[in-house]
Structures are given as C-alpha cells and as structure tokens.
C-alpha cells in the first residue's frame, strides 16, 4: 500500500552544516497497518512523515502509494490520499474561520473547488453528526471561529478534518505532545476510534514508549536517519518498555537522550 524504498534526505548539501536526515530508509506498509515510530530527537521521524506527505522530496529513493510512484508529487497533489495532524494544534486549522468552514475545507480534500457555496444544510447536518461523534460538544458551536477552541478541542477537530474526504493514509506527528495528560488521553482515544472507523493506514510518531507499544500493530525505532529496530507480531507483543530502552542503547551505542521519552516510561 505504502512503500518507501531506500530513502535518502540530505539537508544543506555541500555546506558545512550538511545533515543526512534520512540515510537509506526502507519501509513497506500494508493496508490497515498502524505503525508507531520512536527515536531520539533529530532521528528523522518527522522527516519520514514529511517525505510521505510531500513536504520534502528525497534526494534518492522512491515513495510508492498503491503502486503509483508519487515521489515528486507536491503536497497539495497528495492531499487526496494523505491526512495529517501536527504536534502544534494551531497548525491544523484556520483560526479565523468557523468550525463548519474548516470542516468544509477538509470535506473537499483533493477535489476541485468551484463556485458552489461551501456550506449548505446537508453538509452542516453531516458536520454536526460527525462532531457529536467526537463527544466534545462541538456540534453546538458550528459557527464559532476556531480560535475560540482549546488546544485539545482544536486537535480533535484537526483529527476529524484529517480523516474527512476519504484519505487512506493518516500521519500523526506527536499530535498529543502539546496537550496536558488528561486531554492527551482523550485525543488518543479519539485517534483509536477514528482510525478504526475509517480503516486507515497510519504512521504515528510518539515519544511515549507505552503508547508506541500499545497502539497499532507495528513499531519502528529510529536513530540518525536509520531504522534501527522493527517490531511486529509476537516479538512486539512480548516487548516491554524497559527492554525497548535497553535495545536502543545496544543498537545505537548510546543512552536514549530524549528526556521526554524517559519521562513517559512509567
């Protein structure tokens, strides 16, 4: 379904601060796979998602989706099959526009936008229903500008928007990291439900080891632009957080330095 073949991404090539952010990444996901990605800061986790979304083009390698080579497709062309949620709740929504307008923008994902009104009774009804499914009371606030929402509410709305318009791949980049623990848990629950409901293929970056093992069916660990550990099936089910941290030191020859990762161990 999604294939990354020998991906190399180099920033600042030919300069003193050259940075080999991805150094030969191979990854193959089947339909319905839910991959969690862990690794220390700067390992290249976000860069992988950016390669899938089209924000960056790899110097070497191919990105294949459903048999189509999309390596050189710009972001807006990939929108029809990729939905995305960033860490920062502010990045996923248009603040000055209303909730229903934001949903309408997402509803037309990857489609031609014409001179029809973006909102009508039918769409509003559908949005209201989808919002009430979130269980946050947003269905009564269709006409509120998004800037009035809390971080958690905005992130829930972004999740909904990222899955509207029938994308088949969902990219989540530490999308609960900016939220307080209780809200983060709420968003994680919504994530599980929304992925289940829409039968999506997911790539989720997280710094929470527990989450990484509990959610989804596959896990990769990254270091210095490489995948240093792949887990699935039985091996993954038996894996504990302690063992995972140990594996990291073994494979990378260093301690796991991201303090957020350590904090999230409990």
């Amino acid at each position: 379904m999604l294939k990354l073949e020998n991906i190399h991404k180099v920033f600042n090539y030919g300069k003193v601060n050259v940075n080999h952010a991805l150094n030969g990444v191979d990854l193959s996901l089947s339909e319905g796979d839910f991959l969690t990605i862990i690794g220390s800061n700067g390992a290249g986790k976000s860069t992988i998602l950016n390669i899938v979304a089209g924000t960056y083009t790899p110097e070497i390698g191919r990105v294949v989706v459903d048999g189509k080579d999309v390596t050189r497709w710009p972001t807006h062309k990939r929108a029809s099959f990729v939905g995305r949620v960033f860490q920062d709740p502010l990045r996923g929504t248009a603040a000055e526009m209303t909730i229903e307008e934001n949903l309408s923008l997402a509803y037309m994902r990857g489609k031609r936008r014409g001179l029809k009104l973006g909102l009508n009774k039918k769409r509003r009804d559908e949005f209201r229903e989808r919002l009430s499914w979130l269980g946050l009371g947003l269905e009564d606030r269709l006409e509120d500008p998004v800037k009035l929402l809390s971080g958690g509410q905005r992130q829930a709305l972004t999740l909904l928007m990222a899955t509207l318009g029938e994308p088949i791949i969902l990219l989540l980049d530490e999308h609960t990291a900016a939220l307080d623990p209780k809200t983060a848990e709420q968003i994680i629950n919504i994530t599980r439900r929304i992925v289940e409901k829409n039968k999506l293929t997911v790539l989720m970056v997280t710094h929470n080891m527990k989450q990484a093992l509990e959610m989804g069916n596959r896990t990769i660990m990254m270091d210095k632009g490489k995948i240093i550990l792949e887990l699935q099936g039985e091996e993954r089910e038996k894996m504990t957080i302690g063992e995972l941290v140990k594996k990291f030191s073994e494979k990378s020859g260093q301690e796991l330095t991201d303090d957020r990762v350590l904090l999230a161990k409990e």
Partner: protein
Amino acid sequence: MWYLNLNFYMKTLEEGMAFVLLAMGVYITFRILDFADLTVEGSFPLGAAVAAKSIVSGLNPVLATIFAFLAGCIAGMITGIINTRLKIAGLLAGILTMTSLYSINLRIMGKSQISLFRKPRIFDGFERIFGSDYGTLISLIIIVFIVKILLDFFLHTEFGMSIRATGDNPVMIETLGINTDFIKIFGLALANGMVALSGALFAQYSSSADVQMGMGMIVVGLASVIIGEVFVRTSKIPFATSGVILGAVLYRFAIAVSLRLGFDATDLKIVTAVLVIIALGAPSLRRFLIQDEFAEKLLEEVDEDA
C-alpha cells in the same frame, strides 16, 4: 459655512465611493491573503490610464472600465508569479511590478495626463435616469455594492473559502489539496483588478487620468481598511467588507475636513502614514505599556515583601 453645505457632503461621499474598491483590493491582499502588496501604487493609475485612453479613443465607458479591471488583474498576476514562481519576497515583487507599471502607464497614455472633460463616462446612463445631481453618486453606490455582494458571495464559495484559508493557514490548506501558489496569484489578480477598477472610476469622476495618481495609494487603502476595523470588529466577511466601505468613506471625510480646516494638502500624506503606523503598531505599543505596568506591580510586591 462649508459644513452646512450639502454639496460638501455629496462630493466627499462620491469621492469616498470612488475609492472604496481600492480599499477593498487592499483588504483582500492585506487582510485575507496576509500579503503587503505594493502593486496597488501602479494598478490604480493603470486602471485610470486604460479607462481614459479607451474613452478618448471612442470606446464605450462601460467597456473601458471593464478593460481597466482586466488590466489590473494582469498586473496582480505578474506580482503573484514573481513572488511564488521566482521566490522573490512579496514586498519586492510588488515594488518591481509597480515600477514597471509606471513606464507602462506612460506608454498607454502617451503623455503624463489625459483629460476626460466632456467625454462620455460610466455614470452617464444613471444620470439620465436619476438626474445629474444624484446620478453620479447613485451609480457609484450601485457599482460598489454590486462588487461587495459578489465578493461576499465569492468568499463563501468552496473556491473563495480556500483563498481565505490560504491567508489564514497556508500549511494546513496545502495538506487539504490546495496549490497555495495558484491561490496567491489568483487573489492578487482579483485584488488589483478591483484597485484598477477604482482607478478607472476615479479618473472618470475627476475627469482626468495622471501617471502620478498612484502615489500613496497603498497607504490610503490601508488607512481605509484600518478605520473600517475600528467600527466593525469581526472576521465575518459581509460585515468586514461593509467595514471597508465605511472606512474608505470616513477616510475621505477626514481628509476633506482637514483640508477645509486649513491643513496643507501636501502634509496630508504624512498624517495618513502616521495614522497607519499608530493603528498597526497599537498591539505592540499596548504590550509594551502593559509590560511596564506589570513591572511596576511586581516591584511594589517585592518591596512589600521586603
């Protein structure tokens, strides 16, 4: 006294109405697209030049005005292409187009000024219907409101919404399938088309087109938008565009009154500029003042503790 004279209000209102579409264009670039567009300084006289030249060549003034609009669209498009395709900063892209337009406007007109005295104007038809006293004003109001209503509708369509989203959060709208480069080019074209339309209307209203008439137009547009926002504080489109109309008219009145009070016409530009600086700088200024207040309070508390 001048302020008891109905004619003063009529004339100023007419002038204000002729400048509304300039303000509307600036509103589109500055507020909706979040793009400081200096093309305006060239597209306003471009509209005037195209309309004036067409009219003296014997073209129907309605057609002449439409041509002016289209010429403005092209000017905006060029700024957009320079900015998005060649990656030249927006401010500079606007300056480059504006500078080129100076030469182009001179070429179009063939001289630095064209008089439209006793030439047909777009207002003629309305004057026949409503009489020569009110015809001009009524036709200006009708044109302005037709454009406003079309714009309000457009900004609520699927396409128009993606323009607003591009100014609001370009990263997000790109992930939803919008080519933001295209949207920027389109938005700049539309905005400058409206500015040129304003130039065409003003040239016909004042019976003359002049290559110099664009000078300071960006600041006039900004001042109008900002004055409008003082009275209409909302991002809801129909209200916001009403605010722009109000702002443009009030700005004209402020200028007209200042002139009557004896201000020198040449000093008005700096007055307008300072007004814009204060209005746009107010948030930072306020933060600065609040910071001081905060520091004082903190000091007091520390003193009490000691």
